[in-house]
């Protein structure tokens, strides 16, 4: 058979998936329906592995918050012309579930988000709960269609501080990714 050196080696990609214990990976344009369908598949897959109901609920919850945040951001920045997301759900060496999601953002937006994540990383579980309750009572008029609770909620569920990474793409756009270890 003809071998094209430039073509993607699917087997090598599969090896990466196995090595990194990736349960779910998505890359591309994301719609509300896709979020639901992938979420259902993720739940069913974890239930089939007999994961505890708490683990299934936590992974599902972080997956939903992340993907809905990305959708909301893309809709608020229509000039980006991108409703694409990259999502990975895997396990680390210690068997903890890891959810990583990323998308293209304007540099200033990425920096602002990173600053919020850094601020949350310094808070204890009790302080995160207090921050959640404070944000829960923000007047609707102060909210722009989002409850502003997603990041705090993920930080509360996580076993480690949230971590993000910003990779510059061009003059004003970056790839922003957030890693949540449960």
């Amino acid at each position, binding site marked *: 058979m003809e071998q094209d050196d430039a073509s993607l080696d699917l087997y090598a990609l599969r090896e990466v998936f196995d090595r990194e214990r990736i349960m779910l990976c998505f890359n591309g344009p994301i719609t*509300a329906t896709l*979020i*639901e369908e992938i*979420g*259902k598949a993720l739940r069913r897959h974890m239930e089939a592995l007999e994961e505890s*109901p*708490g683990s299934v*609920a*936590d992974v*599902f*919850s972080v997956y*939903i*918050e992340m993907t*809905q945040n990305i*959708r*909301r951001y893309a809709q608020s920045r229509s000039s980006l012309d991108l409703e694409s997301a990259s999502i990975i759900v895997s396990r680390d060496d210690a068997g903890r579930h890891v959810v990583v999601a990323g998308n293209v953002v304007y540099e200033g937006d990425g920096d602002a988000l990173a600053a919020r994540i850094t601020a949350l990383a310094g808070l204890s579980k009790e302080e995160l709960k207090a921050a959640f*309750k404070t944000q*829960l*009572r923000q007047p*609707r008029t102060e909210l722009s*269609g*989002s*409850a502003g*609770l*997603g990041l705090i*909620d993920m930080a509360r569920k996580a076993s480690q501080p949230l971590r993000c990474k910003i990779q510059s793409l061009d003059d004003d756009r970056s790839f922003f990714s957030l890693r949540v270890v449960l």
Partner: protein
Amino acid sequence: MTDLNIPQSNSSPAIRASWADGVVTMKGDSYPENSFELFQPLIDWVDSYLKTAGRALHSELELLYLNTSSIRALMDVLDMLEGAHVGGGRVSARWSYDSANERVGDLAEEFKEDCTFPFEIVATGDRR
């Protein structure tokens, strides 16, 4: 005021409100993209009931997973019940959940922390 009967979907709960019975029920998962839109008819209904019905209002909840914007919307509903209770109205809530799903129980407890009206949390079903 007409009754509410919003059918359940993959990502949104069944929401019913009966003016004659004074009962609001919510059942299922709630993680729509626009929770504020979904819950607005209920918020309007509860507001109108509390202001004009002059009778007790009970909430029967069997909610499962809630995304954070649904948590916010539900908090707004419970805050209205709390306001009515503080003002002398008769309001109550009961949240039933499967005891295997402890995260739902934790969530219900956290809502209850901010409510002084009768709020019962009932663990049911097949214990694993």
